[in-house]
């Protein structure tokens, strides 16, 4: 395990090779006894276009009867959404039994595989979220089996059940304008063209970390906003299950949120069990899983 201190944010990172080790690492970082509040971000999924209906559908294998769709999701993210949802519910039960106030957070990637041709992407997204009055059935069933309900899911200010990524990106862009004016973020012109700009954060090590480039908010920006929203909702502990390929931007977003928004007492643990097509726990842990902790 390595450990560093950037500015006022303490960071540590370790690798684990089994679900048991992952649970032990989480228990070390977020000990159930005395943990007052916790949000667990699990079950994160992407939206895919269902070719039969032309609508957006959750990229969760368990939700898809169609073999073609199951194959697409398996190849892209594997069992990550359902696996992390079930693990989150298990943890929720354990923490709740120890007296902690625990909520689940469902982050939905509503932009990456949303078609840009045909109907406008914004219309497809709006239609999906308007119809999301209940969790996907497999998610609902897992909750019910654990003796829980949708009440355990933390609402966002955009949706009662979910945190849409485009909403977070939009929120961050608005916040960034204000933060640039306040001098807490820096807007810089790029060598590539006089109209190309980026908004960057100067971290405690003196490095510029890009959050918005040429008007496009990266994953780090949206995660920054998500952490801020969780803090605003009164929670001081956050466990994030993120796909492996997103680990670095998620870590950056968390690091920046803790520094930029001044969130004293906030502790965030990130784990990346799969998300790149792994179809079994053996595959997930065979690749080793990273567990990172950030404390302010």
């Amino acid at each position, binding site marked *: 395990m390595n450990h560093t201190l950037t500015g006022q944010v303490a960071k540590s990172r370790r690798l684990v090779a089994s679900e048991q080790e992952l649970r032990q690492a989480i228990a070390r970082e977020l000990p159930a006894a005395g943990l007052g509040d916790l949000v667990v971000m699990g079950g994160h999924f992407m939206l895919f*276009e269902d070719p039969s209906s032309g609508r957006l559908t959750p990229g969760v294998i368990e939700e898809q009867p169609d073999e073609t769709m199951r194959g697409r999701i398996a190849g892209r993210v594997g069992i990550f959404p359902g696996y992390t949802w079930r693990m989150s519910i298990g943890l929720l039960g354990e923490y709740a039994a120890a007296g902690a106030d625990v909520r689940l957070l469902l982050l939905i990637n509503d932009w990456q595989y949303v*078609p840009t041709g045909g109907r406008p992407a914004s219309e497809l997204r709006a239609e999906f979220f308007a119809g999301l009055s209940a969790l996907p059935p497999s998610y609902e069933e897992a909750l019910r089996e654990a003796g829980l309900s949708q009440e355990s899911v933390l609402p966002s200010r955009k949706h009662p059940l979910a945190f849409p990524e485009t909403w977070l990106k939009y929120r961050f862009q608005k916040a960034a304008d204000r933060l640039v004016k306040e001098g807490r973020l820096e807007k810089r012109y790029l060598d590539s063209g006089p109209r190309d700009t980026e908004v960057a954060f100067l971290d405690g090590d003196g490095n510029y970390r890009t959050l918005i480039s040429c008007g496009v908010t990266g994953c780090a920006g949206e995660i920054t906003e998500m952490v801020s929203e969780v803090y605003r909702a009164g929670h001081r502990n956050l466990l994030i299950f993120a796909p492996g390929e997103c680990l670095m931007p998620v870590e950056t977003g968390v690091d920046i949120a803790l520094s930029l928004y001044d969130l004293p007492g906030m502790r965030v643990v990130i784990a990346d069990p799969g998300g790149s097509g792994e179809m079994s726990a053996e595959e997930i842990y065979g690749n080793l899983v990273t567990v990172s902790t950030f404390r302010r």
Partner: protein
Amino acid sequence: MKVIYLDGCATTRVDDEVVDAMLPFLREEFGNPSSPHMLGKRARRAVDEAAASVARLIGADPEDVVFTSGATEGNNIALLGVFGHDERAPVNGFFCPIDHKSSLAVGQALAARGLDARTARVRPSGQVDLDDLAARLDPYTRVVTAAWVNSEIGVVQPVAAMAGLCAAVGSLLHVDAAQAAGRIPIRVREAGADTLSLSAHKIHGPKGVGALYVRPEIRHRLRPVMYGGGQHALRSGTIPTHLVVGMGKACELAAARLDAEWRRVRELRATALGVLAAGVPGLRVNGDPDASVPHVLNVVLPGVRGESLVSSLRTVAVSTGSACNSGSQEPSYVLTAIGVPAEDANCSVRICLDAGISFADLALGVELLVERARALAGVTTAATPAQG
């Protein structure tokens, strides 16, 4: 599970002969090379022999070799050290925008100190634009630096021509040869480089050791960046005999294998490109193959985000054209600097070929990569910068 390793620019497996050479210096021959007794003298003799091997690989004299912890330290000593001596404004330095961060970050640090750190212009091939450099060098230029072989696209810089331009204005030329050693012939005197850094683990040596060549005529123009017992005037610290011996052996092997490995890697490259081109519609090669070493193959796989591909490959090790260290999975600064569009850069992967791999393993590895790329391309409907 066997992993087909195609990431030799990141590091290489330590050669068995290197391990064998190192082991006695971890066991019975553990003396400190600075000690005056027999164990110390034997260690010193081994260090001297290693310096001779390093020097033979680059065409230098053994006394011009300073052992370091790697090319990063060598780059720092050369680039910071040259500004540590007689630092009077105006002074400036030229940095190559596609170089390793151990050079670029020094440029940024110098700029933060108020020094004029300039960025050399590169052509779409990745080679430094010599006309532009010649026009912008001036008598206040303290140093120009470039990686002889670029680690992402394999482009070979015109070092001798750059040295000529530098000499004309009295500037030093520092060359990062971490990716060049063992891949192209290096005759440092003929090339005219003033300082040159090497790293052992890129040539089947151990991690944690490297070397810096310093042309003796310019030695007085460098100041150390770290002070201590004075084991070497430019680099204090106890010499890690076993690592240095490992580096010496790795250099000896690299020199002996250079020509044969070049020929074999060219054939390996053709095999890899053949499999890639047959399996990935619209495949493009980044950079200019005619100006590059055959060991590095950087390709655009249209519609397939490199980060997704690399993280989902179970038994093949390659790297991406994305630079996650900025935190937002931005396109590689190397690829964008040579004019590759951001979307293509995000869909790029780098394959580094090692002469030791079999044709069968290479073909299998690239086929697995193609298979995975096709699966990912099948779910892509738009430009996909990142999953969040």
